[in-house]
Structures are given as C-alpha cells and as structure tokens.
C-alpha cells in the first residue's frame, strides 16, 4: 500500500512538471499552429537562469520569479524576428527553424555556463522531507504535486474569466473567427508565444532543484511533452493535464511493473490512443 502511494506521488510530481511544459507547447500549437521544437530549450533556459539568480542572490524564489520573464522576453524577439517571416509558409519550415534554434540554445548555454553539471538547492522552506505512510517523502516533491493543480486551476481561471484568456481560447479554436471579431492576431501571436515560453521557463526553474541542470536537459523533455500534447489532444488544456498525469503515472508504475518495456511504454500508449481516438483524448473530432 505504501508502495502504491509512493508510486502515485512519484508519478504525480513528474506529471506536474510535464504538465507545465506541455501547457505552453499546446497553447502555442493550438493558437499559432507552430510545433515548437525549441520549447524544451526554453525550459532549459528557465533552469539555467534560475541557477544564475541563485548564484547572485542565493534565493530560489528570485530565480523562479525573475528568470521566466527574461525567457519570455527572449522569445518575443524569437517570435518577432525569426518565426514571423514564416507564417503562412510551409509548417516544415517552422519545424526546421525551431530545430535550429534548439541546437543553438542547447549548445549556447554550454558556452555561457560551461559543460559541467550544476545543482540548484530547493529553498530552505521546502528542503528536507516529511513522514508520509511510514516513509519520508521530499517536501519539494509534495510542493510540485500541490503546485500543479494550483497552476492548472489558475490557468483555467485565466482562460475562463479574463478577457485575454477568452481571446486566446477563441483564437485556439478558430483563428479566422478571432480575426473577424477584431483580435489583432500578430500581437496575439507574440503574446501567446511569450506566454508559452514563460510557462516552459517556470517549469525549468521548478525542475532545477529536482534534477541536475545541464545542456540538453530540454531535449530529453521535449519528446515526452509532445506525447502529452498529442495524447491529450492538440491545443486542449484539460488534455494536457490528463495527458501529463497519465504519462507521469505510467512512468512510475511502469518502472515497477514492466521494467523491460519502460522505454517503449509512452510510445505504445501514444499509438494506442491515436488509433482509437485520432485527435487525442480531448481533441475535437473532425
């Protein structure tokens, strides 16, 4: 029983990180139709910037608050000067461009911060562990598990109740409609891309105390977030939440029960879901 709960918590905390990253990915895809390969690199930048702020100020919170806006600012430039010329052209060009961006950023951080592995400590309040089911469980992980739904609810409220949120949602479901009702699409696109980047960077900053910070940490997570987005349904927010949870739990329980298959499990899940529900769990069927 305690093993079950431990696995549950393990899966949930990993799922929550995945959720944050996939949220940005799915928003950007849903609204802009851009599949951003460099999304993982923005996640990585969030982690590195957090590391840098921790070095300067010693405070994780400052890194968490100040790092992501910087990444968002960078992505405004990326959207404005690199992506924008490609709108309306073949989607493959965006794919290639963001792929080039990924190479650039992944190796670029190595030039700035070096190739060594870096470690960011969790903030004082969240370090250590608590007793749970006759086991000790890291406080930081519990923080992630709780933070996930809070962020999820926050985003949900944002998308449901605020004007910007409604606009985003409208644009995600029907871009032309948004244009007709007078949304300034270029501004919206920039904002959406920056918002996605901000979410990715928040994820990166939150991941920093949890895993070592190194180049290409984004490359590892990008495929898993792709899978989350696709099984959840492209552009679907609840889909990203459920997809991330499913993948997180599959990871933790799969390790215990299907160790030989664990590498293939996400892909098997992906194939099965896409064959049964072609547009993902929460995707609108065409």
């Amino acid at each position, binding site marked *: 029983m305690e093993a079950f709960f431990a696995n549950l918590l393990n899966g949930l905390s990993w799922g929550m990180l995945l959720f944050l990253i996939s949220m940005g990915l799915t928003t950007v895809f849903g609204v802009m139709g851009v599949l951003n390969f460099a999304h993982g690199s923005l996640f990585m930048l969030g982690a590195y910037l957090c590391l840098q702020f921790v070095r300067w100020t010693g405070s994780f919170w400052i890194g968490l608050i100040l790092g992501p806006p910087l990444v968002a600012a960078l992505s405004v430039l990326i959207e404005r000067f690199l992506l924008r010329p490609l709108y309306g052209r073949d989607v493959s060009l965006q794919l290639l461009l963001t792929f080039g961006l990924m190479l650039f950023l*992944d190796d670029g951080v190595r030039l700035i911060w070096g190739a060594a592995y870096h470690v960011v400590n969790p903030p004082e309040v969240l370090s250590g*562990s608590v007793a749970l089911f006759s086991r000790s469980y890291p406080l930081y992980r519990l923080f992630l598990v709780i933070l996930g739904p809070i962020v999820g609810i926050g985003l949900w409220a944002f998308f449901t109740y605020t004007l910007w949120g409604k606009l985003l949602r409208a644009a995600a479901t029907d871009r032309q409609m948004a244009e007709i009702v007078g949304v300034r699409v270029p501004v919206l696109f920039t904002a959406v891309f920056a918002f996605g980047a901000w979410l990715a960077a928040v994820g990166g900053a939150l991941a920093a105390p949890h895993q*070592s910070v190194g180049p*290409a*940490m984004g*490359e590892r997570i990008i495929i898993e977030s792709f899978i989350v987005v696709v099984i959840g349904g492209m552009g679907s927010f609840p889909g990203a939440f459920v997809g991330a949870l499913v993948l997180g739990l599959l990871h*933790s329980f799969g390790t215990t029960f299907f160790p030989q298959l664990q590498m293939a499990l996400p892909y098997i899940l992906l194939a099965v879901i896409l064959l049964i529900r072609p547009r993902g769990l929460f995707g609108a069927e065409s």
Partner: protein
Amino acid sequence: MKNKSLTPVLVLLVMVFSAGIGLAADKPVKIGFAYIMSGPFATYGQFAKQGAELAIDELNAKGGILGRKVESFFEDTAGKPDVGIRVIRKHVFENGADVVMGLDSSGVAAAVAPVMMELKTPLLVTHAATPDVTGSKCNRYTFRVSLNINQNIAMASAIAADMKSKIWTTAGPDYSFGHQSWEYFQQYLARKKPDAVFLPQAEVAFSPAATTDFSSYITKIMNSKAEGVLISLWGGNLIDFVRQAADMGFFDGKRDILMTLGAATEVLYALKDKMPTGIWVGTRYWFLANDTPVNQAFVEAFSKRYNVYPSYNAHGAYAAVKAYAAAAEKVKSVEKEKIVEGLRGLSLELPVGKITIRPEDHQAITDGAWGVTAADPNYPIRILKPIRKFSGAEITPPVAETGCKMN
C-alpha cells in the same frame, strides 16, 4: 579539394626523403583525440581535453617525442557510433594522425575498435569501459589504458564480499554498461560469497539514459527485499539519483551501497555536501589515492592550471599521451606498426600507479582504489577516507576470461 590528388603522393615523397635524409625530427607527431564535446556529456570531453593538453605541453616542454613536437587534433564524437567512426577516419585520413585516442561511450568504442583493423592505426581507449574492446572485439591496434568494467566490478565485489548484506540489487543505466556491470557483479560476488542472492531482472532498477526523475526507481529499490545495492549510474544520472535518493531517505544506513563511479570528481563537484558520507564509491582514478611523486606532480600541475582536481577522464587522456610517448621512446619510432609493438607489454609509471599493458588483450593492468565518502574542510568536495587500494594483478581477470583472440 582539387589538389587532394597530389597530397598522398607528396606525403609519400616527403616520407621517403625525410626517412632517408633523417629530417624526421622536423615533422610533428600528430595525435587525434575523439571525445564527446557537445551535448549532455560534453563535460567528459572537456576534462579529457584538459588532461591531454597538459600531457602534451609537458612533453613539448621537454622537446616532444623523439625530438619531435606533438600536435593535437580534437574531434567531437557526439557520443554516436557513426560520428565516432567518421571522426576517427578523419583523424587517420585527413589529419594524418599517427595515433588516435579517446572514446567516452562504450557504444562508440565497440563500433570503432573493429574499424581500427582497416585503418591500421593504434587506438588508445581512455574512458569507455566495455569489456569487449579488449575482449571479444580485441585486435592488434586497439589498446586501453583505463580501468574497464571488469576491473572496477572486481573491486566492488571484493568490498561487497566483506559486507553483511546477502541480497543484492542494482540501480544502473538501461544500456550495456549497466547490464554488464550487474552481470559481472553477480558473477564475481558469487565466487567470493557463494550464498549471495541477487534479485531477478524484473526487480532490479535499470533506468533509460534520458531519465531525470529517479523517484520510481528509488521507490522500487526501497520496496524490494534487497540489503545491498550496486549503483552503476554515472554522470548527470548519478547526480540526479543521489539528490533524489537522499531526499527520499535512501541513505538511511539500512542498506549497503556501492557506487561504481561515485568518486568521479565531476559528480562530487556538482553534489558537494549533498553527497552523503559513509558510502563506498569507486572511480577509475582518484587523485588522492597514492602519494607517488608522479601523482603529486600531476595533481599539482592540473589543479594549478585548471583550478579543479583532475577527474578520471582527464587522467585517462593524460595517461594515454604519456603511454604513447613511452612506447615511442621504447621502439625509437612513431611508425604505427612499431608503436603497436612498443605498447604491447609496456610498463610505465603514471599518476594512477604503475600500469602494464597486457600483450595478450591490450588491456592495461592498472591499480585501482575505492573509498568511503567523507567530509574534509580542506577540500571543497567529498573525499575518500579510508581508501582501499587494489593491485592491478588482483582485479584484472585472466586473459582466458576476456574472450579475446588476438589476430
């Protein structure tokens, strides 16, 4: 590209003439290095480069090899077999390397080693630990100056034999390195301790290389009935594992733990005081393991130049350059076939201790050291105290066991 056609002819002419007239001293000795210089494991390439450059500068300061200057070329294998083969071919055909050294990933080493038979150029493996390179895939041109899996695991099993744990499990990377480490551990420990029990394959914890969240593997081990754990994770994986395991109460003293590469300095530098104390850890070279003048000079020169203590990969590259120089001096030539003869059976004093390259399989018989992690105010990182040293002879499996058939 156009005048490439003339290059071989010219080179040949130059060689013939220079051999005849004795102008060989003018031509530098070229060493081609192939390491991971990009991506998540780039730190290994960087360390190796530091070690190699230190060794080359030392040699050149003393007039080079046989009076010839030593030149180096570095190429990035990216940790991929096809790229590894391409850059080794580039070294041989394009850079005109007299010898090639390096290789971090076992997969790359396993792919490159057989190709050396066609390239007819000596290869000194300095990091990759797969037994095959000096085992089933051994060949005339492939050598290894660093510790391999078998040697390291022999030490691990010797230490494990003295522990009270009977039931063992493993946490390792889910590729050949992790699986082989576990298989040799079972084989060696069963010899020393026949009543040892090993958990079946489905109950041990092998994690894919891309894993960053180890919690489920840690949970799996903690829930098993194992008393002892062999951890063959390394690099970033090990750092993540140790941090997450510490938070989950894994190091509560209830189980015996062996980390085969826990004493790697890149790991210790990253973890600093997050590395628990009192854990048995191994490495391929520990900078405090012996106090010979050679080692002291190396550690001093290295830390002065780069501001960090030398990692095992830095030592590997350093050792390879020094071994090559020694072989060249021994046979008074850098001609490839002669170097092969020179390396066979070569003995020399290195920072790690005295090594001998076994002529039968080209594996270096090298001393090793494990130790228990401890805090020391004089060092920014955890150090090993006490240290248990092993002689090369006792940890190197006999040639018959390696599966090597030298041709």
